[in-house]
């Protein structure tokens, strides 16, 4: 396994000041880690997504609340049932679903796991949302599916040996079919250049994740 080094922060722009950055790191270390640390470490091992990245996304998306709900997304990593279903079908179609992941999915989905098991190579969709909002309120399942999504994005957005966490942040936030998501996908410049050409909300997401005083900087 080859190492890919990612230097944090990716930009000197910041969302948080030093006081907030310390409070955020404290919340991750004293509240989120004691509650979900074991699950996150295990999922990080299975999916090969660094735990620091999972903690940071959990913080931004839900501040560590497994019951966090909006009309569109649910749980620790704020996934929608449709996205969660598509992620699993895509992962299975690509032949990337690991044994441990399959076991965990069987545990939570029961008979519905058959829908994933029957996916053919390179199949991307089954045209059906089989993950429910209730499923996504379960921390381990939510973290597993969200981390698989992150792992797909890490693979897709590793460009010239660099993991574009800035692009991943934007696309996780807005989806790849949004105007901003498409802009981020097509972007070939630096993180700072991306920040200047996207709306404030997505620019803030990048600086929260990988800017100066960011969540990643606080826990790496």
């Amino acid at each position: 396994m080859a190492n890919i080094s990612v230097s944090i922060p990716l930009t000197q722009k910041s969302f948080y000041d030093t006081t907030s950055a310390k409070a955020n790191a404290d919340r991750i270390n004293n509240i989120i880690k004691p509650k979900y640390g074991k699950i996150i470490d295990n999922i990080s091992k299975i999916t090969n997504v660094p735990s620091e990245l999972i903690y940071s996304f959990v913080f931004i998306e839900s501040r560590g609340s497994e019951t966090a709900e909006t009309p569109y997304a649910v749980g620790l990593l704020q996934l929608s049932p449709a996205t969660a279903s598509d992620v699993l079908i895509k992962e299975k179609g690509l032949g990337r679903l690991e044994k441990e992941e399959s076991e965990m999915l069987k545990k939570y989905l029961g008979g519905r796991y058959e829908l994933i098991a029957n996916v053919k190579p390179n199949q991307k969709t089954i045209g059906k949302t089989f993950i429910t909002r209730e499923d996504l309120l379960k921390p381990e399942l939510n973290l597993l599916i969200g981390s698989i999504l992150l792992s797909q994005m890490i693979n897709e957005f590793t460009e010239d040996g660099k993991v574009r966490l800035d692009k991943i942040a934007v696309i996780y936030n807005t989806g790849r079919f949004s105007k901003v998501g498409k802009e981020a996908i097509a972007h070939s410049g630096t993180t700072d250049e991306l920040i200047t050409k996207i709306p404030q909300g997505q620019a803030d997401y990048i600086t929260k994740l990988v800017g100066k005083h960011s969540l990643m900087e606080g826990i790496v």
Partner: protein
Amino acid sequence: MDFAKFKNSKALKIGLAIAIPTVLVGAYFGYKFIKKNYGTPKGKGEVTAESKHQNKIVFTKS
């Protein structure tokens, strides 16, 4: 209406001369519009790794 007469009429020829290019040009730009706004975005890449464990990310502070 005398269909045979209509078939050879100037009106039909002019109508078709306008309608056919209009439909073709409309279809071309319509296709481009739909592809641009609703098509699957082609990124820098797609998920290509067959395993999640090909690379390990190591974070360092700069």
